[in-house]
């Protein structure tokens, strides 16, 4: 059987219209809203803090770039938001449990939340607080929650390799868990991705590779960096069953994610899902995206999967406007609580910095 045939033969194992599927659609939309609100609020907070810093320092950026300045804004580092990309993580993670592993990149808040990372500890880690996921030692670029087997890394595609190990161990020890690895189109050019896909395929590991293709690696368009154009060929090259679809086809995305997860869980090896999506925010907060052609961002906003899916479920009567409103309201109060938690939490003791290098 050729790889192409495998793709053509991808079958739906999840039936639309069943109550189970309807519940899943609702859960996915709820998660998308929760992620959207969290990141929107995070972006607002970050912008407000930086603006405050600039004002306090005569409009200079150096207010938050001077290492020795006494003046500090609470959110450390760079913030990379996944606004516009919530559907993929929400759809895939709707099939995962806490034992399943998920790894992300620098742009992973939506994935973290969809995987079940608590907002309070997530934000506290971004604030560098003792109560954060890693006690303030990892930060936004090394988020890690062993309880739900989520982590991210700002080294592009690094964790694709680590994910293999979680899949390998699951298979070897007879656990029913699987591993998923989320990367972007830019990271898919890394050698480790190809090594990992080859190894996952040749050893039939329970893996789901996900490429969130937002067409940009910071400012560089995929067309300038990806020889094949169509990233689904990344999977076909290794005989890995592959689908490519837009996150606006959210129902199909949920189904195909279910198929891929089921394939891994039932011992039938790895899959690749390529999700065409849109990065609505800058590569990092403060990035004005001037490199994007005129009108492109506006067009991308029109393609935003969240309002589209929300409108679809409303139109079908699957959810009510009151339910939708309640989701946003809840998400906002969850963020508010997380913000208060992060702000009020203590910093780690400075004299603990040398502890724990070894077990």
């Amino acid at each position: 059987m050729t790889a192409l045939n495998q793709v053509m033969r991808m079958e739906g194992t999840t039936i639309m219209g069943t109550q189970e599927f309807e519940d899943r659609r609702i859960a996915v939309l709820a998660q998308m809203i929760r992620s959207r609100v969290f990141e929107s609020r995070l972006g607002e907070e970050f912008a407000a803090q930086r603006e405050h810093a600039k004002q306090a320092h005569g409009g200079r950026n150096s207010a938050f770039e001077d290492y020795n300045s006494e003046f500090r804004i609470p959110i450390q580092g760079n913030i990379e938001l996944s606004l516009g990309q919530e559907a993929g993580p929400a759809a895939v993670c709707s099939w995962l449990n806490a034992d399943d592993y998920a790894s992300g990149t620098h742009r992973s808040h939506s994935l973290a939340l969809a995987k079940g990372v608590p907002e309070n500890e997530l934000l506290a880690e971004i604030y560098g607080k003792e109560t954060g996921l890693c006690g303030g030692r990892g930060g936004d670029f090394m988020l890690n929650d062993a309880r739900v087997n989520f982590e991210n890394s700002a080294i592009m595609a690094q964790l694709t390799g680590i994910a293999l190990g979680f899949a390998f161990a699951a298979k070897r020890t007879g656990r029913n868990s699987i591993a998923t690895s989320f990367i972007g189109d830019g990271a898919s050019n890394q050698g480790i991705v190809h090594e990992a896909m080859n190894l996952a395929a040749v050893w039939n590991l329970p893996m789901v590779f996900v490429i969130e293709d937002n067409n940009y690696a910071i400012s560089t368009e995929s067309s300038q960096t990806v020889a094949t154009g169509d990233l689904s060929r990344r999977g076909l090259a290794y005989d890995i069953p592959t689908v490519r679809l837009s996150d606006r086809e959210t129902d199909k995305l949920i189904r195909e994610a279910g198929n891929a997860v089921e394939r891994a869980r039932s011992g039938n090896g790895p899959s690749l899902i390529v999700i065409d999506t849109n990065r609505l925010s800058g590569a990092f907060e403060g990035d004005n995206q001037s490199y994007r052609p005129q009108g492109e961002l506006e067009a991308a906003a029109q393609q935003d999967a969240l309002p589209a899916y929300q409108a679809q479920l409303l139109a079908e009567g699957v959810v009510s406007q009151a339910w939708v409103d309640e989701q946003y309201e809840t998400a906002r109060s969850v963020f508010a609580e997380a913000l208060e938690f992060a702000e009020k939490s203590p910093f780690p003791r400075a004299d603990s910095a040398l502890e724990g290098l070894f077990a």
Partner: protein
Amino acid sequence: MKMTAEAQVGADARPGLDEERDMGRQLIMADAMKEALEASMLEDENVFVLGEDIGRMGGVAGQTRGLYNKFGPERLIDAPISEAAFFGLAAGAAQSGLRPVIELMRVDFIGVAMDQLYNYIAKIGYCTGGRRRIPLTLMTQVGNPLRQGAVHAQTLYGTFAHIPGLRLVAPSTSYDAKGLLRSAVLSDDPVVYFFHASLLALPAGPGIEEWTGAEVPEEDYTLPLDKAVTRREGSDVTIVAASLMVHEALRAAKLAEQDGVSAEVVDLRSIAPLDMEHILASVEKTGRLVVVDEDYRESGLSGEIVTRVVEAGVALRTPPERVTRAHVPIPYSAPLDDAVRPTPEKILAALRQVTRG
């Protein structure tokens, strides 16, 4: 039954060894390593070995030969030439209850897997505040007996030692090779285990010296991963070395004895963390220091040891000397290689320098 007692190698390893003496059980280093792996795998089903050509073939140096037939392809896993992927795989598996031993065929190949090692394996324990740990052993071959040139010959101790979060050990004897590897597999930290190509046939190979014939007990034993050992007692000068350089240092010490110089030889065994307590005690006694390092000269292990001795305020009677590889890539041609590598003659010259006058 595990034996945790320290090796008494140093005490017995002196010139003029009685030829009639029973040397006890002799094992080449490759076989000593194999015994450690075998004991580890028998004890814990979660231990497996993963690397290129370590299964069916038994390793390019024979260091896993026979284990495949005993434990099968699920425990001795031949990996594709994808070091980054199988390093990552091992790191993930190590966080899921498994205890991988991975092999990097030659230390020179670390470049292609460096990100997995230094940005992940070394960091994740600390950066998660101990919520994650990576019990992983990385075995890798160092050294240049075949004179293979710049990319099949390095030791790179300093490259690894510069990374916080890795334990590094480098055995110089078969006894240590077994005990240190056994401890590495039992450790909950990532341990890099450097085995030297020139020592794999110890003590059966050419250049055998009396100190290489340390007895290797049949029974299982461990050694501490962070302790140096004195191989030769002396009163005039301390030579600090690791792995093959311990042997070169001992040869130089023998030559120096003819000059009336009494050299003490400290075998690091652990390159990270350094057993400074042991090193300092020796240098305080002798007041002179020669560091021998097969790695490159600049910003590395030899400089670190000298610095820490100086920082500790030990009163040196003469300036310390370093005998290292010159700071150039390792040239292929034998005369060129000889010109840049540490040799017993160069160590002897350093000993003369620090004991002059």
